[in-house]
């Protein structure tokens, strides 16, 4: 399972980096969305169940094997933040398109 997760994360990272190296703002935004998903998956995979570890549940008797809830809370937070940033990036790409008349980023010359 961890091997499969690792491969999926690697593929997603590759795709997102390829997209983000583009000058086209739309591709960059899509690349960023894929990147944030890749990272969420990475967190889930890497912090799932460490060897011999049990979740730090407070004041409750254990009735069975639990997944640790904290990484899931991390990911939930990260998804919300990722959505916000993706929305901002889209708005910014749209504004850049309106201002520059193209969705390609230009070279910047030192003034």
């Amino acid at each position: 399972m961890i091997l499969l997760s690792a491969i999926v994360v690697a593929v997603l990272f590759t795709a997102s980096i390829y997209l983000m190296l583009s000058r086209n703002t739309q591709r960059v935004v899509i690349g960023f969305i894929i990147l944030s998903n890749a990272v969420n998956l990475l967190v889930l995979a890497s912090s799932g169940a460490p060897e011999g570890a049990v979740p730090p549940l407070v004041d409750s008797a254990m009735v069975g094997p639990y997944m640790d809830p904290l990484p899931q809370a991390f990911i939930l937070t990260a998804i919300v933040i990722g959505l916000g940033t993706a929305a901002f990036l889209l708005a910014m790409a749209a504004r850049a398109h309106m201002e520059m008349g193209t969705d390609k980023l230009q070279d910047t010359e030192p003034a």
Partner: protein
Amino acid sequence: MSNLIVLVVLIPILTACFLMPLLDRPAASRAVSIVTGVLLLLLAAVLLAGAAQGQIYVSPLGNWPALVGIVWVVDGLAAILLLLTAITSLATIVYAPGALRAGAETRYFYLLHQFILAGINGSFVTGDFFNLFVFFEIMLLASFVLIALGGRAAQMNRTFPYVLVNLIASALFLGGLGAMYGTAGTVNMAVLSERVAAGTLPPVFWAAMTLVLAVFVIKAAVAPVFFWLPDAYPEAPTPVLAFFAGLLTKVGLYTLFRSVPLVLGSAPTAFHAVLVVLATLTMIVGILGALGRNRIKEILAFQIVSSVGFIVFGLAVYTPMMVAAGVFYMVHSILITTALFFAGGVAERIGGGDQLGRVRGLARTHPWLATGFFVSALALAGLPPLSGFWAKLFLVVGGFSAGAFAGTATILFVSLLTLGLVLRLWTMIFWGAPLVPVDGSPGHDRAMMGATLTMATAAVGLALLVSPLWSYSEIVGNQLLQVRPYVNAVINGTPALTVPVALEQGGGIP
């Protein structure tokens, strides 16, 4: 007393809520911002007074154990940075109206400024890496909008890469945090420090930690990953730029000062050896970049990179004196940088653009501006008796006594180049025959001049406070390097984790 910490984040967020209905009334927004800014200043002063006695305030939110809950901590380093944030923020709000273009820029400035303030203060007080990630995001999102305020084409073009670099860095930070939690079982800085000291963590943990430290290095704008800063900053409106230049860059530095001793311990490691080289490189690249530009804001933005090198060098050499010197330099740098950007902004307003040569002879037409710029610039270059001289003196003495000869020699060399740089700015902007008439010319904005002179006075005033500030920096340096005071304060200040019976039989916490 410890619960006062919550207010440093709560005040800006509540202020932002009050400002939302006032979007179309900038004057009222500004008044509200100034009042709450003064509150934050007083609060920071109270916390600093305690921290100067070596006190460490700990506030466990919701009274959760440190292992799983969020802890907010104010120690010496956090307290002084909170105070400087409050000062710089207040000055920025006073300075803002004259320097912002009415309409698009003033409408959202005050609101967003409060959010970025919440993010910065939160980053300074949190004792939890995941919470730090969240505050980074609050700070970054506000900073993205602020830096692109006004939405001109050039701004968009240059801001997009800045936004992306920071978002990618945040994504890597999150990935590192996941692996860190998976291997160490906590993201609390103090508990993590204890587990690292126990020495049982697997190699994967160090891979995760390397990723996290690399992200901090990117956020601090250390060479070779500094390029996003001098490219995007000059496009921002002046008050935004001055605040970012003074403070936002210091948040990345703060995370390095906070996490390196906690995670890597009190003895220098291979990471420090790398950091010494990178810091030296940063000083040189920054100053050479500044010498090669001919827009005031671009020159000053590259100068920030150079000062980042000085501060990181203090941390990298890693003796108590050098860490203290790094902290001292940070304090000096925040005030000086803000003052210089304020003065540069006034010159830009007078000339209608910030290319060198747009204005000349301001020493005759705007003598007070010239005075403010002159003392700040000399403090930056490090002429005695100004604060820059002492900051560099401590770094040089500490560097030579620690045996870091190459880096320390670079400090002296770069200081010489900095002097050349400020003299170039001074002769280009303030000498020569004036281009504008002496009276009735633009740039006599009382608020802008007031804020510029206040920051310049604060920068000069530091020279009078060298002795107390240096003993404070020494307290901070020792507190950071000894690690135990911080860890003990957090562990003792939070409730212990009650472990269920079944859990103990199941093998316990990793």
